[in-house]
């Protein structure tokens, strides 16, 4: 029966999940404290959690509910986006429970299963539960096995829906990703697996689709006839911090290109989906991801870099090799620049330059579409000297917004034409109120909406791009760049060869 009080025209009523439980494994970890618990508080504060909602935290601590409640409260208070209201937390806090145990402890999982069953009577939760694996991937197999063994991952047995949420890294290469996908898809059913790519939870990323498919203005020029090339940049000013053990095994390409940048590239290049359902969008994304073409000469058209000591934001920072925990002879990249192509009619011969790195001058993620110059300019050459190519830039973070650069007459008596920029900021105005990526994504998990989650095939398509690169790079050394610079010189040379240059992001 459809809910008679829900009417698509009634757009004030938010979508609220059915009564359910969220089980967080690794609830003491960084992600849980900085993102998940605060996001839950924010959701509660916005009134988006169902009347029957319980959080079960699982961790290897000798804790009571009290200890855990105080950790959760501190975490929420420190990182919540929305204003703090004690009464909101009190209601949520009452329904946060702690289940102690380690992952190989059968008894602990039996207890967890029992606790979930009891929620039916105590909270009116008819078996619905999502399991958030905020744990190292190495712990996945044991946890998944436990969930299977106890029947907790089984929709039928539990009488409601059972979903699982996994975080990146989704494997380390194609075979390991497949193995991981099989493992999760087998323990649960593929429809019930939610892979988090938090980039897709960002408003501006979702806005790419609105910009492209809700307007008439951009789509007609969104192709190789008008686009000269596209630059996608994901720059961070921070170094690797304390994550050496993880990062040194992975490097920039696996860490962010395989997932976030592939998703951005897919959203920018995909064809119009026939509808906005999860499967229709996925179909188009997959199609274009499979059309991604690697450069013929990988050593020439890709650049890996590694930061050396330098100055960032007024502070002296150590080089990568001097970071604690990094082996002195590490050849892991902290910067990567790629030349990719998309093999279809729309994008033939348009280069896509993708770069990502740490210890770059500032934190920025953006997509710049650079258009071709006008085929003919009826102006004196001296008058158009300052005229560049038209650009459309989608800034994903920070200062979310869109800028459009085009030529305009300089006031005065001569016909001098110069670039001006039109700037639309969702930026400062929105950051306060636009939800955190994790808020949106957790809510979607509980609602069962998979639009913003990459599925196994997308993950595998990402590795199909990254694996051959990693293979070609094996045994090579990354180019050094000084911390606080826009990557190694070779990256500039890579574009200069075709007469292009990186946009200063």
């Amino acid at each position: 029966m459809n809910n008679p009080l829900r009417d698509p025209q009634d757009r004030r009523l938010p979508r609220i999940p059915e009564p359910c439980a969220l089980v967080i494994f690794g609830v003491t970890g960084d992600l849980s404290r900085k993102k998940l618990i605060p996001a839950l508080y924010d959701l509660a504060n916005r009134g988006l959690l169902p009347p029957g909602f319980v959080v079960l935290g699982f961790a290897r601590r000798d804790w009571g509910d009290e200890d855990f409640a105080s950790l959760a409260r501190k975490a929420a208070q420190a990182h919540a986006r929305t204003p703090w209201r004690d009464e909101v937390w009190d209601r949520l806090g009452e329904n946060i429970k702690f289940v102690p145990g380690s992952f190989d402890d059968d008894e602990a999982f039996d207890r967890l299963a029992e606790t979930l069953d009891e929620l039916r009577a105590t909270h009116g939760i008819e078996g619905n539960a999502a399991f958030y694996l905020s744990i190292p991937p190495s712990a996945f197999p044991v946890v998944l096995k436990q969930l299977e063994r106890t029947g907790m991952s089984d929709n039928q047995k539990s009488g409601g829906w059972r979903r699982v949420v996994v975080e990146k890294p989704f494997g380390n290469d194609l075979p390991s990703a497949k193995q991981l996908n099989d493992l999760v898809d087998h323990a649960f059913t593929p429809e019930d697996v939610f892979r988090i790519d938090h980039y897709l939870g960002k408003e501006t990323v979702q806005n790419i689709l609105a910009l492209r498919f809700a307007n008439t203005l951009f789509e007609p020029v969104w192709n190789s006839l008008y686009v000269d090339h596209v630059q996608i940049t994901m720059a961070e000013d921070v170094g690797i911090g304390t994550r050496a053990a993880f990062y040194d095994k992975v490097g920039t390409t696996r860490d962010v290109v395989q997932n976030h940048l592939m998703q951005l590239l897919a959203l920018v290049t995909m064809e119009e989906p026939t509808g906005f359902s999860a499967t229709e969008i996925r179909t188009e994304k997959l199609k274009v991801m499979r059309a991604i073409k690697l450069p013929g000469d990988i050593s020439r058209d890709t650049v890996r870099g590694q930061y050396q000591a330098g100055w960032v934001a007024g502070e002296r920072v150590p080089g990568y090799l001097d970071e604690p925990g990094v082996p002195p002879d590490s050849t892991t990249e902290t910067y990567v620049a790629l030349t990719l192509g998309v093999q279809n009619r729309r994008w033939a011969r348009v280069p896509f330059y993708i770069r990502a790195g740490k210890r770059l001058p500032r934190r920025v993620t953006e997509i710049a579409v650079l258009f071709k110059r006008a085929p003919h300019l009826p102006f004196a050459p001296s008058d158009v000297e300052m005229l560049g190519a038209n650009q459309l830039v989608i800034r994903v973070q920070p200062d979310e917004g869109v800028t459009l650069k085009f030529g305009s007459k300089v006031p005065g008596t001569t016909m001098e034409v110069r670039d001006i920029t039109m700037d639309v900021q969702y930026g400062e105005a929105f950051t306060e109120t636009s939800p955190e990526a994790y808020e949106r994504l957790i809510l979607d998990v509980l609602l069962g909406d998979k639009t913003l989650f990459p599925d196994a095939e997308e993950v595998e398509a990402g590795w199909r791009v990254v694996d051959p690169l990693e293979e070609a790079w094996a045994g090579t050394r990354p180019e050094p760049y000084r911390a606080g610079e826009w990557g190694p010189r070779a990256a500039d040379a890579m574009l200069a060869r075709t007469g292009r240059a990186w946009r200063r992001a």
Partner: protein
Amino acid sequence: MIGLWDTTGSAVVKALAAERRTAGGVTSGLALTLIVVTEEAEVRAAEAAATVAAAAHPCRLLIVVRDEVTHPRSRLDAEVVVGGRLGPCEAVVTRMRGRLALHAESVVMPLLAPDVPVVTWWRCGPPDRIAYDPLGVVAERRITDTMQCDDPLEALRVRADDYAPGDTDLAWTRITPWRTLVASVFDASHSLPTKITIEAPPKDPSALLMGGWLTARLGVTPEMRPVSGNRMHGVAMQMTDGGTVTIRRDDGRVVVQRTGLPDRTLPLTDRSLGEDLAEELRRLDADQTYAAALAKATGRDGFQDRAPIRVHVWHDPALAERPDTADDAGRDTGPSGETAMVSVSGAADVAKVPDTADVARPAGPGVADGDIEAAGDTRAPGGEPAK
């Protein structure tokens, strides 16, 4: 901030342009113009609410305070603020006195941001007919607040009589959290109510709308049970499966009780005026759910045939304030007593206006007087009344 005393409309337009230039692109992405009609005492509250709402909907805020319409000398004062204390808003607070107050649109129209929707919000008792206020006529969305009226229930009926698509009332906005809770009952239930009771103070327009909504959606007309206090207190439902569901406010929280299930407690925080306003600004199209609820709540009908565009009706409050013409003003509600003036409409292209204008334009001697008014404020306020 620029303060302009005893100034003109064009000086205000120039000051706003100058402030925008110095502030440099802070608000280049305006989503809408928000006109707030209010009283001096409410200016700060209106500003504060608009600042909260503007965080989600960057807007140009035009606050209009009309005062002393009978004052012999017209005067305009204005404050222009871009960024700063009003957050991502650019704001002009205008104070108008004398006959100018009856022609506020002459100051406001040139200040509307180009090509974005206009929303007018009365942070005071709204006019009996929105068409009386040119500031309501220019807007595609009109927000009233019957809670601010002396008799809110009567005011809600007035709103129903005057309803046009694009109108909403904050009494409706305020119950979104309640409606959300009541709706969630039916997410997990396969049974419908046979009897509904709403517990609310007797003069609560929100409760009336709640009842209207439930009637429209469920076909069960709720019974109203008056309780003391100033806010809606609860909803109780007798279900077809024999059970009961009650949702009751209890000291800053809500307790949901349902036969066969343990009680559940949820926070129910009262939202600020700014949050309510932000919800209003989220959608700029007509709220059909509200229309249906309002129709059922007041027993009025035929809302779907109402045109979304109003035509300004000349209505001189000054007449009402002068004892010798009070009778005339009192009669000023029938079709012969009112005058269609300019057909001003923010969104409509001119081609659409004539047929509605034709319908609304009354025949009669009033027309000429209205045209004189429209042509300019040529008479002293003490001059011959329009009759």
